[in-house]
């Protein structure tokens, strides 16, 4: 099975949402600011629940926030 990476548009969506800070987003979804930072840097893959919560904050479907990229 090939490995993949989950990328996202969280940083872009944050700025589009009235320049929301990482801390504000973290408070809304119930995680630490460091986790949001790790998510934006694609250093951490969120759980399904967290991914849905983040998508809900931006009022976007989850597929517009997170992208799966398969690597060889």
């Amino acid at each position: 099975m090939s490995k993949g990476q989950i990328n996202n548009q969280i940083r872009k969506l944050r700025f589009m949402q009235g320049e929301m800070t990482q801390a504000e987003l973290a408070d809304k979804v119930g995680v630490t600011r460091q986790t949001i930072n790790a998510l934006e840097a694609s250093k951490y893959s969120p759980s399904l629940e967290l991914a849905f919560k983040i998508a809900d904050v931006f009022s976007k479907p989850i597929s517009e926030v997170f992208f799966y990229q398969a690597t060889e």
Partner: protein
Amino acid sequence: MMSRQEILSWSSLGFSLSVVFFYIIFVFGWPEIIPDYSDRFTKVFLNVFWIALAVELIIGLTEHKSKVLKDERDEKIEAYGHKYAYTFLSVSIVAILFQIMLSNFLGPEGSQYLLLGSTSMIIHVLFIVLFASSIVKRITMIYHYKKEW
């Protein structure tokens, strides 16, 4: 900036390292091959001990100010820490049990050549292994906080 759990991992690592250092010095004494550095090492580990204690106290006292103490990423990293610490502890205990069985088999005369030939030595090693597994857990957690997923 480090998260609360990452800071706690560092302070706990420092605390465990200093406890192990002082316990080994207390039980086995300072090695004769490096006598000139005993004061320096003692001062360093004493400072590490007090700093770690202070950090854990501050973190504990300021807990009420944080909205999220531990999130899913912290729990995932802690699970990795538990996994490797448990593996280390299991292997160590099996090795100790093997030594005890060998000691019983060889009797008092043969046991003097074993590392764990006496009951007191077994207790000391068990204590050290306990703190060493905590060190393994914290190192694993710090590694995962720092590396890319």
